[in-house]
């Protein structure tokens, strides 16, 4: 039986540590770019060894980015559901009743309120969760998932989705999106500013003050950062997304105490060919399996993995198998 479930707690702890580490790195990156730019432009100065002035641009980038995410935060799941053309799941057949029942079962195991259930008319087996907190959340499945999965596999998949809700992954990824947007905005500001002569203006200001050479070095560093930061921030955001996927897998085992459930479901999904028709890039990261990739694209190329929202299916299956024999 489910003999290896003791290790899922260790996995969960490790995944949470990783997420914290990644977010810290991201914040450092954001601040470096922001303060660097503010220093360059002159809103922040070094006076007698202390910092003076206010990092206007860093704060502006954060505020603008936050407004965007506040809209999606309070819009909650409705926007996502509308984008995916989802409709409420009715208990009109025994199979549909089974899905609703499994959601109840997982909510019990997770000690959470029961999310509302929705369905998308698509033959590709997949599922996603959305909502700002456990009391305002939804789980959406595809018709393909309902048709293909048996009860055990359904528990594994829905347990994974429940885990996303419990661990506030939707909120975490929204915050990450704010940071990514903020970095992109700052990088954009910096390059435009440099392009439109800001550098020259800076250099003459430096010559008049005592900063001189230090100013030039910082200017170059900030420019390089502006070029590289958007790519780095995407990489970090994707790394966080993948880490949360692994965490949701481990949490699914915590709920079902049965690694076999999710393992069989993922293996089953791995054999399906078609990508999801109604998934857009914006909500791709919410699904249990990358909906934009068909079976052939889910291979293990190094570069493809770095920019993917989901870990390779093979690795996920491997980790679940390890939980079974631990």
């Amino acid at each position, binding site marked *: 039986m489910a003999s290896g479930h003791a290790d899922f707690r260790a996995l969960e702890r490790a995944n949470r540590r990783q997420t914290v580490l990644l977010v810290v790195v991201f914040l450092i990156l954001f601040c470096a770019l922001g303060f660097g730019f503010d220093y360059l432009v002159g809103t922040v100065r070094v006076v007698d060894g202390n910092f003076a002035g206010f990092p206007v641009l860093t704060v502006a980038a954060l505020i603008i980015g936050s407004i965007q995410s506040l809209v999606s935060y309070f819009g909650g799941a409705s926007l996502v559901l509308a984008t995916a053309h989802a409709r409420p799941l009715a208990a009109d057949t025994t199979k549909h009743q*089974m899905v609703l029942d499994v959601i109840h079962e997982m909510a019990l195991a997770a000690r959470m309120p029961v999310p509302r259930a929705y369905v998308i008319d698509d033959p590709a087996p997949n599922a996603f969760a959305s909502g700002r907190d456990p009391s305002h959340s939804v789980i959406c499945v595809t018709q393909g998932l309902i*048709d293909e999965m048996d009860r055990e596999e359904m528990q594994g998949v829905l347990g994974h989705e429940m885990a996303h809700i419990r661990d506030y992954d939707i909120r975490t990824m929204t915050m990450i999106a704010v940071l990514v947007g903020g970095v992109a905005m700052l990088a954009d500001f910096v390059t435009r500013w440099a392009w439109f002569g800001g550098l020259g203006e800076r250099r003459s200001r430096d010559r008049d003050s005592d900063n001189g050479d230090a100013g030039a070095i910082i200017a170059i560093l900030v420019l390089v950062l502006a070029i590289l930061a958007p790519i780095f921030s995407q990489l970090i955001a994707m790394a966080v997304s993948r880490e949360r996927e692994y965490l949701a897998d481990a949490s699914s085992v915590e709920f079902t105490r*049965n690694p076999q459930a999710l393992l069989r479901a993922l293996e089953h999904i791995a054999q399906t060919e078609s990508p999801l028709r109604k998934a857009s890039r914006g909500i791709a990261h919410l699904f249990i399996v990358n909906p934009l990739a068909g079976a052939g694209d889910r291979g293990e190329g190094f570069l493809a993995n770095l920019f993917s929202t989901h870990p390779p299916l093979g690795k996920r299956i491997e980790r679940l198998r390890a939980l079974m024999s631990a």
Partner: protein
Amino acid sequence: MWFLGIIVAIGAWLILSYNSLVRLRNEVEGSWRQIDVQLKRRHDLIPNLVEAVKGYMQFERDTLTQVVEARGKAISATTQSARLDAENQLTTGLGRLLAVFENYPQLKADQNVMNLQEQLTTTENQLSFARQAYNDVVLQLNTKIQSFPTNIIANQFGFHAAEYFKIATEDQALPKVDLALGTPTPRA
């Protein structure tokens, strides 16, 4: 000045620790009640189920009788251990019934029976998960009570370790994997 800071910090820690102990203790109580909810659901479900399948499952007469009797005992039990015994017997009997559903293909044609089977499966699962949730939260409470530095205040404020829910040893032979509705789709 920093002395004041230390007092404030200790005060904050006291409040936070106390509140988390209260929260955990309430979760333990809530989880225990949830088990009761599932047990009652099961009691309510059984008469309908037995009525519906009685005509089809000619070879399970003994199991059906056992289930009905165990249900009666569980409802009328006066002691906790008698109740637990009866509930365990119920779990065994119902598990056996669910396991042999496949042997009676005529059952699949009866929509009412199919619905009841789903209700029964989910009730057994929910009962199992309710017990699991209870044990999980007991683990959290007990760990907190025993860990330093919370253990200093735990006893003072009357927080005691809770007991895990244990099933009788004969029930541990029961398969915990849930029974699939129909056969799995053949792999390509």
